[in-house]
């Protein structure tokens, strides 16, 4: 076997100078909320690391996550992610097809067994034996069962593989579940799992996780949902530049009123920023141009479990998820009927008590004295 190439070699071949790489690390450090001074050390360590082998499996997904990751042309800043990793298998990007592609996966898995990072994109259907999503005649769960034991760690890319996402949304016709659920149920082997949620996730969050793995050799600290805390530690709301308007009670009431033009808080227009943990407000999108709120639209909460089932995207967070009028109407009817029944029963009881009541007479008192 030949000497593994270091990242520094790869970068040199690509004509990326140390300045360029330092710049990349500065943006990564900024994202990971590390002090900017760390960038130089990070750059140094990364250039000496070997590229991380990655196998990327796609299940019930829309390829939006991959679009997000591979959006830019190399060699750009964001494109450097593909220099950090050696993407050994990804169906959509693979030139080969059919048996050749299947063979490529088997080869990559064998060559890097125990060392590769498995990226999973999309939910896994379990209903009816998992027949609702198959590749080369094999169900997603079968493929995953085979791949997971050989992986060093699993990164669930996107909300579908992290929490079930759209396929899992009510009524979940295919019985779709997340990678984490499969591990909990014991359907696949337990391995270190990182959920990088988002619909799609922010591309640099992926590179951040990989960079963390390469520089420190460990997985980043995770929150209660298995997401890296450095990126998912704060809510959108807490990091939002419009937050002060929330505190001052200045809200846009429609998408084109004075408040909207002044850039006031979008809470009343259904922004789910307060309950959404993600890095959009700091990492931003489209190469740092803006993020939904900066573009005038509330947060949908796409990095949270079951965000599809959280009611309308345009209903404010405190609003009930479903209209209450039917339930309230029925309750009033039932309440009136039940109240009448209880009241009438009370009246009847009182009447009976009155009827059963006999007045005490002098005779009664006399008889009591007698014995």
């Amino acid at each position, binding site marked *: 076997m030949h000497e593994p190439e270091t990242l520094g070699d790869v970068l040199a071949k690509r004509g990326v100078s140390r*300045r*360029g790489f330092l710049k*990349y690390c500065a*943006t990564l450090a*900024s994202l990971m909320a590390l002090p900017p001074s760390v960038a130089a050390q990070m750059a140094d360590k990364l250039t000496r690391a070997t590229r991380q082998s990655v196998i990327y499996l796609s299940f019930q997904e829309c390829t939006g996550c991959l679009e997000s990751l591979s959006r830019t042309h190399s060699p750009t800043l964001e494109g450097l992610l593909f220099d950090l990793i050696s993407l050994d298998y990804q169906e959509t990007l693979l030139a080969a097809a059919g048996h050749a592609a299947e063979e490529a996966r088997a080869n990559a898995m064998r060559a890097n067994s125990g060392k590769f990072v498995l990226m999973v994109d999309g939910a896994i259907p379990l209903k009816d034996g998992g027949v609702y999503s198959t590749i080369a005649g094999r169900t997603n769960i079968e493929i995953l069962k085979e791949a997971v034991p050989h992986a060093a760690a699993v990164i669930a890319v996107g909300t579908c593989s992290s929490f079930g996402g759209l396929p899992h949304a009510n009524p979940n016709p295919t019985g779709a579940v997340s990678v984490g659920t499969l591990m909990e149920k014991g359907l696949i082997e337990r391995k270190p799992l990182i959920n990088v949620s988002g619909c799609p996730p922010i591309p640099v969050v992926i590179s951040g996780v990989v960079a963390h793995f390469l520089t420190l050799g460990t997985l980043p600290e995770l929150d209660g949902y298995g997401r890296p805390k450095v990126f998912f530690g704060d809510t959108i709301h807490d990091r939002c530049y419009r937050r*002060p308007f929330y505190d001052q009670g200045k809200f846009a009431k429609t998408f084109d009123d004075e408040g909207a033009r002044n850039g*006031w808080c979008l809470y009343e227009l259904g922004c789910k920023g307060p309950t959404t943990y993600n890095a959009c407000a*700091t990492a931003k999108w489209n190469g*740092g*141009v803006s993020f939904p709120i900066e573009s005038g639209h509330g947060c949908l909460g796409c990095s949270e479990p079951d965000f599809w089932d959280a009611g309308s995207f345009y209903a404010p967070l405190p609003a009930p998820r479903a209209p209450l009028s039917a339930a309230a109407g029925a309750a009033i009817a039932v309440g009136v009927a039940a109240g009448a029944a209880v009241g009438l029963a009370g009246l009847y009881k009182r009447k009976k008590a009155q009827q059963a009541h006999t007045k005490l007479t002098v005779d009664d008192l006399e008889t009591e004295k007698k014995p």
Partner: protein
Amino acid sequence: MSLRDIAVRVEASPASRIGGIRPILHEIRTLLAALIDTGRGGSIDLRSLPLSPADFEALDAALGEGEVRATIRALGETRVTETAIHGVWRVTHCNDGGEAVADLIEVCDAPEILKTHAADARVGLAKLRTRLEPG
């Protein structure tokens, strides 16, 4: 074609001023004092702070423009400018679409990214050697 070609500009409405720049100026003052005393400054990541476009403008106005302006072309442009406050630098990393991806204030003698790294110097030396080779 990049996003810069779209003829829509963000206008900072005065009503979107949040007024968060005073704490930043105070932090810069602390860092600058540390640079003078210990030789170690520091940097502030502006992207991690909730600042509106109007706040960015206010910050730029407060710091002013100084003597040095440099452009680095490595994976897109990086603009390095010294502000009117000596020792306080604005470093803006852009991608090759020209969009800012990181925005830092560095308090130092000269930002790290301006310096030539030893590895790059070695590449330069090798290049020069090949050019000097007779042939």
